């Protein structure tokens, strides 16, 4: 049985779909050519809003005309997908994006004008149908979740929080050793009661479980969330609602490597492929609590480097304003826990912060020549802050990375009772 909340959502979506596509039918009946007008969903139409610190979809629109030979296939796919979603809504179903892929995938057999028979699939890979779903989201102004399309979500949450999901009330502090799996439609969740001071998002599921069993959230009045890797939309939306509606500050804990840094930036400002959702998903006030390169190495070596190298021009006096940092790890601990960065990690780091910083901080000649192909990359503007440049400069210089688990290995107590609370207390994070 579907809940009452679902029902009203369904009705709203059905009427929007009908309205939007009746327009197309009307155009055709009037002899006008069928066109879908929607925002352009490409990198060049993605804008970083400096003021609000958000990745947004730009103002460019695209006209997808059925009569344009290059667009007719996409046009067909968009309509096909719309009709499947419409069917699912009307039949009280909750398809996943994979379901939609299979429902729409079929073969069109036709003869060309020479009489030769051709076969063509409506789409071949799920990548194609997923892309059409995203097109429909921007065309309809409705999100996938609102259209009651599910996807496999991996986000989990525990803490002093009572929610209503569907027609059930759930106390997230009574989940035993398990956790509440964030549902694919987090907008339908209702917050009933909360007793917490902040939200801690942990990239790694394993560390989430350790902290959960340790009783971290009870002790420190936190709501503990994990994205289990790259955050999905539901996790991001859920965290956003905790921040926006319950006014809870959000701290993000990831591995100390370029992928971890990027995960943080997705939570904070949004992602390029889903820039049209940033306003709903991003948490602009989210703070990167760690693990920082400076937590591992301190900043002594960096200061030396910054003075002698051509970094002077890059940082100027910003460097002096950065607070000094002492490492949390001793020399011998570093030896044990630090992992050597792979060329792929270095390339990713160049993508984040640009080629010139990499060139200035890198000492390894072999790696230097390997990243030459990335010459000219300027990086993302939101990583061009003195704090992030310091972090990445240390990364380039040491070619090291560190997983959160290393901090837990030093002692779960160290991680839960010293590292995290101390960093929050002393504002030792990147905003």
């Amino acid at each position: 049985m579907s809940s009452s909340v679902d029902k009203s959502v369904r009705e709203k979506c059905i009427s929007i779909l009908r309205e939007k596509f009746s327009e197309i039918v009307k155009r055709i009946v009037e002899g006008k050519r069928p066109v879908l007008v929607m925002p352009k969903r490409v990198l060049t139409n993605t804008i970083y809003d400096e003021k609000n610190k958000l990745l947004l979809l730009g103002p460019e629109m695209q006209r997808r005309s059925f009569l344009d030979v290059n667009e007719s296939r996409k046009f067909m796919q968009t309509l096909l997908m719309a009709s499947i979603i419409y069917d699912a809504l009307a039949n009280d179903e909750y398809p996943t994006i994979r379901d939609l892929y299979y429902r729409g995938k079929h073969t069109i057999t036709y003869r060309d004008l020479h009489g030769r028979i051709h076969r063509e699939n409506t789409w071949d890979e799920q990548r194609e149908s997923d892309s059409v779903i995203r097109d429909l989201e921007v065309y309809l102004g409705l999100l996938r979740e609102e259209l009651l399309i599910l996807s496999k979500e991996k986000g989990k949450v525990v803490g002093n929080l009572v929610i209503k999901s569907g027609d059930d009330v759930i106390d997230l502090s009574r989940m035993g050793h398990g956790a509440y799996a964030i549902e694919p439609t987090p907008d339908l969740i209702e917050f009933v009661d909360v007793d917490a001071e902040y939200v801690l998002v942990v990239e790694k599921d394993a560390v989430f479980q350790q902290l959960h069993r340790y009783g971290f959230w009870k002790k420190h009045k936190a709501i503990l969330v994990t994205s289990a890797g790259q955050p999905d939309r539901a996790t991001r939306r859920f965290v956003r609602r905790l921040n926006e509606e319950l006014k809870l500050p959000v701290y993000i804990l990831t591995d100390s490597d370029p992928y971890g840094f990027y995960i943080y930036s997705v939570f904070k400002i949004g992602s390029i492929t889903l820039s049209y959702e940033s306003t709903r998903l991003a948490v602009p006030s989210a703070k990167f609590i760690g693990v920082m390169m400076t937590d591992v190495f301190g900043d002594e070596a960096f200061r030396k480097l910054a003075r002698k190298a051509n970094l002077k021009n890059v940082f100027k006096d910003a460097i002096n304003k950065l607070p000094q940092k002492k490492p949390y790890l001793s020399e011998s601990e570093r030896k044990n826990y630090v992992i050597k960065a792979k060329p792929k990690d270095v390339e990713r780091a160049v993508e984040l912060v640009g080629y010139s910083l990499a060139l200035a901080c890198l000492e390894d000649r072999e790696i230097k020549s390997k990243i030459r192909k990335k010459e000219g990359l300027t990086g993302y503007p939101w990583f061009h802050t003195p704090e992030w440049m310091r972090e990445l400069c240390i990364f380039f210089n040491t070619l090291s990375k560190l997983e959160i688990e290393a901090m837990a290995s030093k002692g779960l107590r160290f991680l839960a009772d010293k590292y995290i609370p101390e960093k929050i207390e002393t504002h030792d994070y990147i905003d």
Partner: protein
Amino acid sequence: MSVIDNEKYTAISPAEFFLRYREIAGFANPARALYQAVRELVENALDATDAHGILPSIKVVIRKADPIQDFYKVTVEDNGIGLPPHIVPEAFGRVLFSSKYVLRQTRGMFGLGVKVAALYAQMTTGKPIEVITSKPNLKFIYYFKLRIDVHKNEPVVLEKGSWRKTRNWHGTVVSLTLEGDWSRARSKILEYIARTAVATPYANIVLVTPDNEIVYYERVVNKLPKPPKEVKPHPHGIDLETLKKIINSTSYKTVYDLLVKNFQSIGEVTAKAVLKQAEIPSSINPKKLGETELLRLVETMKNYKKYKPPKADALSPLSSEIIVAGLKRMYNPEFVEAVTRRPSTYHGYPFIVEVGIAYGGNTPLSDKDKPVLLRYANKIPLLYDEGSDVITSVVKEDIAWSNYLVELPAPILVLVHICSTKVPFKGVGKESIADVPEVRREVKLGILEVARRLRRYLAKKIKEEEIRKKIVSIAKYIPEVVRALTIISDGPGVSREELEEKLVNIIVARTGLSSTDIKRVIDSVEIGA
């Protein structure tokens, strides 16, 4: 000891000469000889028909003539004008006897070929030549068995007979038995017959091979090429021997009359000018001219600059209609066009270039560097020495095929026919045309003229193909789009059929695509599971 004293100088008869130097005439080995014999007989057969206004029916039969030795009997039958019986022995049995000393375009130049073939046959097998012939107005059919006395250069009639015609048959049947090599000559003979057929779509040609294979090219047009007219010689092409012959046979009493009446392009003014320049009085009797005066006259006639160009009446081009019909019969191409250029001259000889181009259909795929070439000189296909032919260098060097939308290799064939009272052959083999600037220019212009038409055709075809693709790439999605739209917008009550019809109309109006083609694609669409 004196070697020189022992040296003997013997005169040899022309027959003996050709027997010794048979390579020149194309009888170097048994394979080549078989091919050459077929050629000579077929060409005579065609000359006996189409040049006289008769639609040719030619039958070529090659049979193994000996169970042990490689002897083949080649029989060629035509429905031509036939030969007067009294000249048959001379025509086949004495070298250099020929009706072809007049100036007009014929396939064989002096009728030598068939005699060399006969000589070769006689030498290799000892079998006589058999000839059956009758002319249209004769009541009898005549039959001869001949051999050639090589030393005396004389025909020897072994058997001879005649019988009354029961129907109005006319024509000639010639049989030669010679040593040959069918297995090695086969492909060349088949190719020769095929190429001959391309140039003679007005002929029925049957070939029966020793393998009992029957190749038949059926007549597809009833139009003959304009027969060549006999014309008086042009003074540019004169030589001492020919001038002497003309003087011997003329009845004109003054050299002035001789020039005016016996040559083309010489009028009264020109005759006077030429004679004045040669310092020969106009009123002298030509039979009284001495050797030095004759030589002076020949030199003057050859070098005089102000003649009118020679007449092209002596030429018999195929006509574009016949070339097109011939190419169609052989290759059933999607594009075929031909052109007959206006007559032109080189060294005082008139010539005409004709070009045909076939594209697509059963046209064979060309090499990477040039289209397939079919070369003809005076309607005879040229099969050998393609590489050294001026036509080859024109299609390779002078024409950028890609400018004509042809990306080689392609199914494209170029036919070039050069007809002239004197084809500028390269070398004694007579299998390729020499690089004479005037000829090269005409060949190039002819090919370009047809190539431009080919380009127009291909450009149109490419454009049509693009439109077809466009129709298909949109129309194939219409059923799916219409289905989706009717599912979502079940409001306004528009039926699928109506929506589809409207969509088709919009596409027609906006793109100019054809509605029947769009509907054809839509009707072919099946949406699977």
